[in-house]
Structure formats: structure tokens, C-alpha cells
């Protein structure tokens, strides 16, 4: 057992060369450029004095950079090294601050911000995972312990060893692409090698970014952001093109019959969990309520579905639902997330898409319903509808 100092060839093989050379270890600036949300990033941000981006003016280059991160594509693993601006590490930390700041201050509807946030965090965490594949174990250990708050990270027999429960506590496993069943678990520890450590770190990165955003939102005050930087407007105009402005863009609105059997698997799963008295995560509840709104379910029906969760409080649930239905708050009716977003949040229980022609649960439902009706089962459908209303939790 040792402290994890020094690169071991058994870890990742001979690391790739390039700027920031691995031989003598990377400098803080390079590390900040690679992991802008990390303590190395914070150090550079402090040195540059750009914490608040006060008086910042967004230029073309930065706009492009941030838009790339808000788009739905993951960084290309082959080109990930080239995505890091080693020449101007400040660009990396500023792009990170702009992205985060945008999520805090933008006036885009909540569903859009959620989608953008999940894309940005996904982008950063996938890139982190890829970059860590060529990193010294010392750096991986440092990131895990300092930035992802894992206590007792140790180096043992060429592996990074972390406590299983520490990892569980720090990562939002429910929202992750990682599952406990896939992890290298042994006697209460995770035994991480050069392949699994980046994966685990990538997951922790995603959780940590969500946590940072939550902290920032909390600091921006309960009544919403107090000072909205001027660069947010310029960015908002461009970024809003990346998300549908309304759910109509996703397929139109109308009161559809509610036939729970025809709901897409993701919604069935959330319903089943609620019916079992479990507590689906906040985002799952949001997705379900928005889905119900989009298919024209009255609020009361949606509320009823929530009433079996073990943490159910009627006043709180009705408040959230009214919010999602656009009756209070910003008066924006929320759109259910798309399949891709649900997949990122690990709320899609199927491999691929349950209907290759559709990328949104409402569209899936409409197609299912159409099939149902087309197969001359209208009568059956209607009687089921009555049943569903009566028996749904």
C-alpha cells in the first residue's frame, strides 16, 4: 500500500504524450483546463479574479464553446484531448463559469434548463472520464478525494481503493449510467483500475456538478436571481434554439384518453414505483406530472397517482403539480423530458427506444394509443379507461 504517488505502468500503460506532459506531471493550469470544476479550476479562477464574471462580454469563440457543451452530443473520445484549450486554460474555466452561470440566471423555462444542465454536465463528466484514462493515478486519487469528497482513497496493489458506501453516498446512483451491479465491488470496497476509475470518477463528476448547481441556485436566493449578468441575454437567444420552446414542438397538445396500459415503459415504471409506496426521484416525478399534463390528464388525476408515495404530502404535491401545469409560478406549462433526457437520468428502462419512430414518451403513447384504437379495441379501451381512473393509486 502506498500514497498513490507516481505513475505506475500497470495503471494505464504508457500514457499519451502531448502538452502538459505526463512525465513530470501536469501543471495546475493544465489540470484546471482539463477539470475546470475542480480545486485546480478554482485556483485558476481565483488567480484570474473571474469568479463572478462581472462585466464579462461574451465573444464569438466563447459562445461557440458554450453552445457546443449545451448541445446534445458527447465529446468524441478520440478527440477529447484536442477539446482542451491548453494554450488558454482561462477559456476552459470561463466556459465552465458561463455555462453554470447561465443555468442559474437564465429565464428559460425549468424543463429547458434541466435539459441544458444535464447536457452540460454530461459533456463535462464524459470528458472527465475520457481524460482520466490517460491520467496518473495520483491525479485521479486527488480528484476523487478533494473534488468528489471521497474519504480514505488509497492506493493498493496498483489499484485505487475507495469505500463502497462512501462512493454510494457521494454519487447520485439513481441518476447515473453506472449501476452497483456493474462496479468492481469487493469486501465493502471499490477496487478501481485504469479503466473503472475514470468511469466512477465520471459518475461522481456528474453528481458533483449537479451539487454545485444546486448550491449556486440556493445562493442566488429563493426569489430567483438577484443580479442577472448582461451576457446571459446574448447567450439565451442562441441557447434557446437548442431546446424546444414548447411541448407543441414535440407533437401537439390535446386531451387524450388515459390508458395506463399504453403508457411508455418509463412512465409505467414511475407509476409502479409510486404505487408500491416508493419515492421516485424528483426528476422522475417531474417527468411523470409533465407527461400527464401533456396527455391532458386533469391535475387531480395526476395528484392521485402521487398519493401513494411514502413521502406524500398533499399540499406540497399539489403545489408542484400546479407549477408543472403552469397555473402558478412562472405560468409556463412544463414539457415532459424527451427519451434522451430520460435516458441520461436513467429513467428509461429499455435498451434503445421503445418505439424507433419516437423520441418522446408522449409520442410513444400517442402511437400506442393509435395502434390500440386501430385494432378495433376502442370499446375495450374505453372500459379500461374507466378502470384506470378508478384503480390508479
Amino acid at each position: 500500500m502506498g500514497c498513490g504517488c507516481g505513475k505506475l505502468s500497470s495503471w494505464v500503460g504508457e500514457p499519451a504524450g502531448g502538452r502538459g506532459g505526463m512525465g513530470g506531471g501536469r501543471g495546475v493550469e493544465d489540470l484546471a483546463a482539463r477539470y475546470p470544476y475542480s480545486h485546480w479550476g478554482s485556483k485558476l479562477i481565483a488567480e484570474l479574479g473571474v469568479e463572478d464574471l462581472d462585466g464579462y462580454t461574451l465573444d464569438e469563440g466563447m459562445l461557440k464553446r458554450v453552445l457546443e457543451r449545451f448541445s446534445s452530443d458527447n465529446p468524441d473520445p478520440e478527440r477529447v484531448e484536442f477539446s482542451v484549450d491548453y494554450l488558454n486554460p482561462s477559456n476552459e474555466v470561463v466556459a465552465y463559469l458561463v455555462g453554470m452561470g447561465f443555468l442559474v440566471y437564465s429565464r428559460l423555462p425549468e424543463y429547458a434548463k434541466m435539459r441544458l444542465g444535464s447536457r452540460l454536465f454530461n459533456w463535462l463528466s464524459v470528458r472527465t472520464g475520457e481524460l482520466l484514462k490517460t491520467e496518473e493515478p495520483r491525479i485521479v486519487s486527488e480528484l476523487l478525494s478533494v473534488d468528489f469528497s471521497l474519504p480514505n482513497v488509497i492506493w493498493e496493489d496498483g489499484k485505487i481503493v475507495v469505500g463502497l458506501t462512501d462512493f454510494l453516498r457521494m454519487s447520485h446512483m439513481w441518476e447515473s449510467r453506472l449501476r452497483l451491479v456493474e462496479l468492481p465491488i469487493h469486501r465493502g470496497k471499490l477496487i478501481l483500475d485504469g479503466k473503472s476509475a475514470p468511469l466512477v470518477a465520471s459518475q461522481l463528476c456528474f453528481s458533483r456538478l449537479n451539487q454545485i448547481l444546486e448550491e449556486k441556485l440556493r445562493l442566488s436566493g429563493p426569489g430567483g436571481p438577484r443580479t442577472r449578468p448582461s451576457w446571459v441575454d446574448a447567450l439565451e437567444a442562441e441557447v434557446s434554439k437548442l431546446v424546444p420552446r414548447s411541448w407543441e414542438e414535440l407533437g401537439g397538445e390535446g386531451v387524450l384518453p388515459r390508458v395506463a396500459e399504453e403508457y411508455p415503459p418509463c412512465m409505467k415504471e414511475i407509476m409502479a414505483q409510486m404505487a408500491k409506496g416508493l419515492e421516485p426521484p424528483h426528476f422522475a416525478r417531474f417527468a411523470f406530472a409533465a407527461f400527464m399534463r401533456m396527455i391532458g390528464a386533469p391535475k387531480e388525476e395526476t395528484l392521485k397517482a402521487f398519493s401513494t408515495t411514502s413521502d406524500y404530502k398533499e399540499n406540497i404535491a399539489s403545489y408542484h403539480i400546479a407549477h408543472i401545469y403552469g397555473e402558478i409560478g412562472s405560468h409556463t406549462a412544463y414539457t415532459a423530458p424527451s427519451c434522451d433526457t430520460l435516458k441520461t437520468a436513467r429513467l428509461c428502462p429499455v435498451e434503445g427506444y421503445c418505439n424507433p419512430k419516437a423520441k418522446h414518451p408522449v409520442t410513444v403513447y400517442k402511437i400506442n394509443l393509435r395502434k390500440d384504437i386501430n385494432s378495433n379495441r376502442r370499446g375495450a379501451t374505453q372500459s379500461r379507461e374507466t378502470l384506470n381512473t378508478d384503480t390508479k393509486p
Partner: protein
Amino acid sequence: MVTDMCREETLKSILSEYYRYNYSKIYKPNSIDGREFGFNFFGGSFKRHIGFKVFEEYVNYIQRMVPKDVYYSIATYLEPTRPMNEKGWVNAELPFDLDAEQLLKTSDELIKSGWISQSVYEQIKQRFLYLLEDFIEADFGLDEKDYMLVFSGGRGYHIRVLVEPYINLDQKLRRQIVEYVSIGYKPSEPIKANVFQPFPHDYGWNRKLFEYIRVMGQSQLEELGLSSDLTAKRVISAFRKAKNPSSVRLNRSEFTSMQKLLDFVLGSYTVAVDERVTVDINRLLRAPGTVHGGSGLVCKAITKNDLEGFDPFRHASMENVSRKRVHVKRVPFEVVINDESVSPELNGKEVELNSALAYYVVVRGGGDFVDEAV
């Protein structure tokens, strides 16, 4: 034949006798003043949100009220007697519940109605040991000081993990743990690769799947209808040759064949624990040392050492001295409690039995008390 009320009174008197002389066997939960207690009474009423400041109060309550079933929360709360959302959750044991019906994936009417034979109990116990050793100890790294093993008094066993940080896990993480134990994992289809590495590392489920496939023999292949499948045999041989999981390499057809083997392995080596029990952080679980009102067997804390030789009928029976006359009607197999047996040959006959056995037979619907004046 007796009336329902009389029967209930007789059953209650048997429990009363047990609690009068065996109060020292009632298990003292830690942080008793933070637990919520629940009681199921003869006559059908259920009371929960009850709290006790000290252990003696709890024992006195049981002796005085003679409840049919006693439960306490796996959670500790700041104010356990308040309504659910005002209790102030502090933490909760991480429980695993193995139940005959779920474990054996059976719809056997006998098992459903609670008639569990000694051999079925033995099967559950072996599965329970497997859960304990291969998952709780080998994977999660817990040992005897970290958990309590309990025979539920009914159809199975509980493991109650008592230590931090497991007691602090939220529902989401508990659900992941259930998935780990009862669903397992199957590597997904390779997208491009011609040579495929099914296991990226050497631990957890990767190790389990690797080890299980290595030891697959002809009989299992036959069971799968693959006894003459050369690809399946090649897969097993590749697994046997590999030093560790991550060094296994397969081509596409071998990978597809491996997946069939994995279905079999996962079906055999996952343990169907009750998800609701593990995930629910406010669950009331049966209190060790109290009697399971639906069987008359005692819910009993046991050590891992005792588990090997544990026989519920011998080691979890009420040690009552009184005797009861029973009209035996439908006993499906021989049941031995306190060295006395009742078997199907006695169906239709009236016999005098020790009250623990009499309780078991009557409450399971295998007979009824005769002329029982309480």
C-alpha cells in the same frame, strides 16, 4: 369445535403463558426510545406509533396486552410516536427479507398458507446463508458484529444490517442494493468489437458470473438444451482457461452463447429478497424474541454459528408446559414441535398436544381446539 372468539382466546392464553415465563427472551432493541412499535391484537385491531422509553416498559406492555404480533421500526426517530411525517427520521437498519414463496418462486398453496415443511425451511436457510456469505460478507464487507440474523417465525429469515453507513442510506441506494442481490448483471451486446471482453474488471458480479460459468457442467448444459452446443462448450472452456474475469475474450457467436449461460446463472445465483422491505426506510419488522402470531413460532435472533444447525421447529418453538386438546383435520405433513409430533395420520382425530404444537396446528388451519374453556 369452538367459536372464533373462543379460539382466539385460547391462542391468546398460549401466548400469555409464553410471555409470562419467557420475557427474558424478548430482544432488547438498541435506541429503544427512538423506535416506533406496532402491535397486531387478537380480534384484528392494529396499533402503531407506540413508543417506549425503556425496555421494561416494552416487556410489561407485551405481558399485559398479549398482542398477536409485535413489530418495531427498523428506523429510529426523534419522535417515534408522532404521525409519520413528523417523526424526524434519524436512520434505519438495512433489512433483507427472504420469504419462502418469493425465494422458491413457488405458487404452492401449502407454502402460501404458511405450511412450511422442514425441508423447505432447510432450502430457505441454505439460500439465506448464500445471501449472507456471498453478498453481505463477501461483497459489502460486513461481518457478524455489523448485522443481526433473525428467523422471522414465519416463512423465512431476515438480515438486519445495523451499522453506519448502511443505516444512513436513502431509498435510492437501498434499491441499488436490492438490484445487486436479486437481479444481478449481464454484460450488454458488443456494438462493434469482433473480439469481445465481457468483463471489464475482476470483482463484484463480473467475478461471480466468471466463477459460475467456469464450473458449469454437462448436467447444466443439458438443462439448458445445450448439451451438444459446441459454442457453449467453447465459452466454458475459454472461461476455464482465463486467469481472471477481465482476461476472457470471446467472438460474437461465443458472446451470444455466453448470454444464454448467463441467463441460467443469473436465475440460479441471484437471491429474490423482498424489495419493499429493503427499500422502505420506515418499515416495521417483527420483533425478535416475540411470537409470530400466525405460526406460534418465535421470531428469533440467531448467530451465524447457530444457523447451520438451526431448525425452526426445534429451536424457535414456544417452551410452554400447558397442553390443549385439538381436533386434527388437515395436517399436510408431519410437524414435530417440542419433541411431539402431529402427522396426516391423525387427520380426523382428537389428540392432546403441547400448546406450542396445538397453536401451530390451529393457527395454520390444520385443526381446531376442542371444548376449550379458557
